[in-house]
């Protein structure tokens, strides 16, 4: 294991933030810490980096107990949401910082920094200052800076949170490719389930300061541990006391065994997919169907339909 967190507790004043958190991160993996704001995921990442001290519990990095080690001695790369660029230094000097601290020879620094700048596609901007870069470029610089010291683990705290939607999408795909090239054990924090599913090979869901579930994106999406995880990982519709994904619902015009009657309130066409908004027993819900199905059913507001989980649908009983 590259990172082993055991029974970590952390409070800020009287506010508990992490409660008995244990976590294993496999070497070479790309793990997402996913959860709502205030769930403790950034604090956990900072505990791993040594930027926060846990009240109790231990952190081991590459088998070495790092709980009492200062951040300087952990050899982790940390990337901040707001870049934390050294604004008085050029892009080159930013990336070179960790190597200069380690007093590496000048030639070696130059070579390594230029390699990294090529890796993050900033080789032409080496002499710029951070204020002359876009947000996405700054974050790529911060990533190169963190990678320069060849960290044992790379930690990213909401790395794309401050970027606009388009850049965020590009960087996600790029981070995934980068990880396939560099293979450094990587943990990133996000509150965006789509980002976690798209980028990570392991997702750890953190809520209320506790690990709720950990597993591959498929496992967490298809077999959520509880209704909270199911709701957090994607859209859900409540059907006869069960939570069902909107794309896992069968929609019929005639009564059907195990079906619940519902009234169509609106039909929204979103290209290929069509969202049928319905009211079941006074509650709003929606069903996702293809355009072809929608055309076949010819649904309109006010129509009565019958809904039931599709065969093989993953559903979760609400009354646990």
């Amino acid at each position, binding site marked *: 294991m590259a990172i082993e967190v055991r029974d970590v507790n952390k409070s800020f004043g009287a506010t508990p933030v992490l409660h008995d958190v244990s976590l294993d991160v496999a070497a070479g993996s790309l793990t997402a810490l996913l959860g709502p704001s205030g769930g403790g995921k950034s604090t956990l990442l900072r505990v791993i*980096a*040594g*930027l926060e001290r846990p009240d109790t519990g231990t952190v081991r990095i590459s088998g070495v107990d790092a709980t009492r080690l*200062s*951040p*300087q*001695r*952990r*050899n*982790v*790369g*940390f990337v*901040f949401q*707001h870049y*934390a*660029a*050294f*604004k*008085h*230094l050029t892009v080159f000097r930013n990336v070179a*910082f*960790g190597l200069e*601290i*380690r007093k590496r020879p000048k030639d070696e620094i130059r070579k390594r920094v230029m390699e990294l700048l090529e890796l993050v596609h900033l080789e032409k901007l080496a002499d710029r*200052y951070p*204020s002359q870069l876009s947000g996405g470029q700054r974050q790529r610089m*911060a990533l190169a*800076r*963190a990678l*320069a*010291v060849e960290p044992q683990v790379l930690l990213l705290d909401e790395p794309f949170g401050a970027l606009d939607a388009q850049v965020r999408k590009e960087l996600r795909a790029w981070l995934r490719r980068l990880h396939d090239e560099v293979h450094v054990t990587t943990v990133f924090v996000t509150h965006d389930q789509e980002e976690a599913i798209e980028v990570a090979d392991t997702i750890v869901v953190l809520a209320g300061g506790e690990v709720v579930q950990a597993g591959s994106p498929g496992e967490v999406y298809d077999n959520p541990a509880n209704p909270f995880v199911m709701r957090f990982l994607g859209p859900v519709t409540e059907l006869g006391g069960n939570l069902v994904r909107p794309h896992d619902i069968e929609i019929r015009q005639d009564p059907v065994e195990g079906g619940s009657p519902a009234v169509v309130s609106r039909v929204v066409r979103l290209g290929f997919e069509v969202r049928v908004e319905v009211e079941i027993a006074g509650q709003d819900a929606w069903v996702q169907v293809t355009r072809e199905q929608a055309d076949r059913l010819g649904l309109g507001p006010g129509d009565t339909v019958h809904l039931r989980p599709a065969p093989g649908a993953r559903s979760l009983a609400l009354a646990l």
Partner: protein
Amino acid sequence: MTRSRVAGGTAAGLGIAVLYLSLIVLIPLAAVVWRSADEGPGYFWRSVTTPDAWAALTLTIGASALVALVNLVIGTVIAWVLVRDRFPGRAVLDTIIDLPFALPTIVAGLVLLALYGPQSPLGVNLAYSRAGVVLALMFVTLPFVVRTVQPVLLELDTEMEQAAASLGAKPFQTFRRIILPNLIPAMLSGTALAFTRAIAEFGSTVLISGNLPFKTQVAAVNLFSQIESDNITGAAAISTVLLVVALVALIALDVLQRWGSRRG
């Protein structure tokens, strides 16, 4: 239409600014410089190099440079403590920093004389000594560096320091390589302001220094005595020298700030 109105507003604003600056600052200063040349360059030179005027000028500039340097260090330390440390009475201390700005400088002189004069309750007598002059100048210039560094330090992204730490920098290395370079423009700016304020100081030094010519008389007091003995041209000459020194300091500051902002 809109554009011309905006341009008209800008022109009016610029006109007011230039007129105001001219009336209040530029014309009086030009008059002093003009006046100092009344009797020709030879007289100007003789006026500023009379033994007492020269002694007063060198004392003033030397003491001001010393005070500026002390401020550079101590002012930065005080700003640091005010921004980064949490202790009871911090808000009170923060307010007290501005007192030297608020107090009439003659009151400052009086207080200093009571505390560090012949009847000093602390047993420290700095009256009629150059140390007394330096003390008075330190008192009145204290806020400059504190108040220029403080906002920069407040704005400084502490995540930069955490990033430096995770890259292996020890606290001193982080201070020298990350924090200090970001503070230096503000530190220099405050130092230059403290220096220019100190070379012009009159009120706070007049009581504690005793105004002994060749020993503790500062330039502003020397200038005043020249006026009293009706040597207006000589007084204007000394003023011009002070003006030039202040101008050089401010230009140096501007150059340094441009250098800093280019990298910011």
